[in-house]
């Protein structure tokens, strides 16, 4: 018995005591008629200090949601339309009643995306980027939250330490200057979308309810 408890305690340490839910337990509405077929992405809310972060996120958002089986309205068009209406980022759309998006776009759901952190850290022998995002998907029919997630990734962008100290300084400087952030933006978006129940264009639609790996903490944090 005590052996059993020991292993339970050990397991809790190993998994870091983060309560994980299945997709269906975390997002039950996504397994009912409320599951959207289409997603309208609102212009990203950028709370980070990096001015170009929003462009990286916008350019990489459509693909993971489309690959998850949803119709995603083309952001190249919708961003222009929002901008013409004076909506430069999602903050200005928070107060708009969600059925408006159903009426004017035919969208079943709207996605609010917030860039919380886009920090480039430089050190002599290493460099990394921390990106923290939150995603909230809201039904345009019920105005309920269908899916939400908070996702952070830290990616090493450091130079080559084998080249000696001076070489490393130069390599780090060069790497951070010409760093391609597209794969980083893709990584954070993909990690978040992996927790989302898939939609009608995906072969596993309605069958991924038992897939575990949704952190309740990350689900709730996105709503704060």
């Amino acid at each position, binding site marked *: 018995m005590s052996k059993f408890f020991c292993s339970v305690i050990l397991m809790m340490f190993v998994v870091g005591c983060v309560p994980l839910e299945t997709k269906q337990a975390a997002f039950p509405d996504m397994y009912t008629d409320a599951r959207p077929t289409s997603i309208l992405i609102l212009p990203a809310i950028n709370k980070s200090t990096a001015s170009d972060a929003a462009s990286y996120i916008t350019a*990489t958002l459509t693909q993971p949601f*489309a690959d998850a089986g949803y*119709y995603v309205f083309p*952001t*190249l068009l919708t961003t222009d339309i929002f901008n013409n209406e004076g909506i430069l980022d999602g903050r200005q759309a928070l107060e708009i009643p969600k059925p408006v998006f159903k009426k004017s776009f035919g969208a079943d759901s709207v996605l609010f995306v917030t860039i919380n952190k886009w920090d480039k850290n430089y050190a002599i022998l290493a460099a990394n980027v921390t990106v923290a995002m939150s995603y909230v998907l809201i039904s345009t029919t019920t105005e309920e939250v269908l899916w939400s997630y908070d996702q952070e990734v830290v990616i090493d962008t450091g130079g080559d330490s084998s080249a000696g100290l001076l070489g490393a300084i130069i390599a780090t400087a060069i790497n951070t200057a010409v760093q391609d952030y*597209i794969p980083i933006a893709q990584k954070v978006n993909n990690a978040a979308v992996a927790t989302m129940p898939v939609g009608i264009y995906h072969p596993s639609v309605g069958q991924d309810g038992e897939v575990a790996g949704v952190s309740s903490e990350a689900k709730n944090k996105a709503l704060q």
Partner: protein
Amino acid sequence: MRYNKGIHILLLVLLLSGCVVTSPVGYYWGSYSKTYYTLLKDPTENNILAHEDNLRKIIRVSEEKNLKVAPGILAELGYLTSKRNNNQEAAALYEKEVKLYPESRVFLERLISSNDK
């Protein structure tokens, strides 16, 4: 000897399949994010054209491989051509998108009617 034959067949299959990378749903995206980012960052005529070329390539490769064109690709190309006042091509592309994805009907029919004005 038999092993060698197997390798040859495998290589032949790989060669014939053309090795196009697609997503699990079966969409081909090419380097979509890259040219889209460049356009957002610096919307010069050259960068818009580069994205347009990329969209045409995505459509061409998808059709060659009998894949459904990914959501939004046809509409995006339609939008960029409408900006050059090529409303006929734009309307044809929007209609193709609506046919593939009926969810886009409300939105794109509005765009078509606003182009006609």
